[in-house]
């Protein structure tokens, strides 16, 4: 009986201490869907999806801190976006930029975004693969499976291996490395 009471208390304590991390939604919706906050907030802006996704994987804003997006999504910077011209008209840029800034790693409560926010406290990476958290997550993957893999080529192509990257899910269970069907982490 006593131990039952103890475990009840423990559960209550856990729920209470865990709730600040879930601050983005109400307790009820969190209870209904406890896994939602594990990854990143998905891209929910049509202009962002369309404009960024026209050339590359539409990286979720939670992958970089706001200070990085500020530098990247600037009219001048976009004229030379990693060697490509990616200029946008002023209205579209404003919309894309606002969405990125409002959902950046340091503005998000999603688990991976939080980790990226912490990892980038003292730096302003412009490439997602420069983020230490992301580097660390991939450092056990042999180079031949990424750089030397004609269907991957670089860690920048998230969705080459992360089959649900478009839905903001990067969990190891969803990874399939092209040409290495037996890989398992």
């Amino acid at each position, binding site marked *: 009986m006593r131990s039952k009471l103890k475990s009840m208390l423990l559960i209550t304590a856990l729920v209470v201490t865990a709730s600040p991390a879930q601050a983005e939604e109400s307790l009820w919706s969190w209870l209904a869907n406890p896994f939602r906050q594990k990854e990143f907030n998905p891209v929910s802006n049509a202009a962002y999806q369309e404009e960024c996704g026209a050339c*590359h994987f539409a990286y979720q804003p939670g992958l970089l801190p706001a200070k990085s997006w500020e530098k990247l999504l600037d009219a001048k910077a976009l004229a030379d976006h990693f060697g490509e011209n990616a*200029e946008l008209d002023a209205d579209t840029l404003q919309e894309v930029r606002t969405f990125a800034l409002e959902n950046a790693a340091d503005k998000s409560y999603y688990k991976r975004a939080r980790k990226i926010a912490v990892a980038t406290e003292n730096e302003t990476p412009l490439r997602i693969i420069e983020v230490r958290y992301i580097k660390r997550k991939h450092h056990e993957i042999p180079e031949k499976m990424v750089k030397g893999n004609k269907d991957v080529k670089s860690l920048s192509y998230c969705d080459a291996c992360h089959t649900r990257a478009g839905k903001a899910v990067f969990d190891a269970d969803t990874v399939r490395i092209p040409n290495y069907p037996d890989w398992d982490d």
Partner: protein
Amino acid sequence: MKKLVAAACALSMLLSPLACATPESDALLQKYQSKGAGKADPVKGKQNWERIVETDGEQMSCANSCHNSDFAKDGKHHKTGKVIRPMSMKVNPERYTNIKKMEKWFKRNCNDAWGRDCTAQEKADFLAFMLAQ
């Protein structure tokens, strides 16, 4: 509806090589003419489309580096590997139906390929050439 336009377009192509257009491409051509472009010349457009420019030691052209020289097939961006949908409006009826989009890509691609904006005349030539494919 777009498919219907494309089908009508394919049919009219049999009669005249330049009959293919969308209301948006017409409006854009008019805009270029108001900015000083003369008659759009598809032959000149083809030459520019196939023109080879050396960038970072690579031989680049519209036809082979990003778009496919076959207008009915997907192209592939030389760097990002992103699939670029066919340029022919017969197989890809979405093409040439959005002025903002056409202008955006002319601006980007001219700057990427030639390091400058294209002139109104060059864009008109490109458009006439592409519409005829």
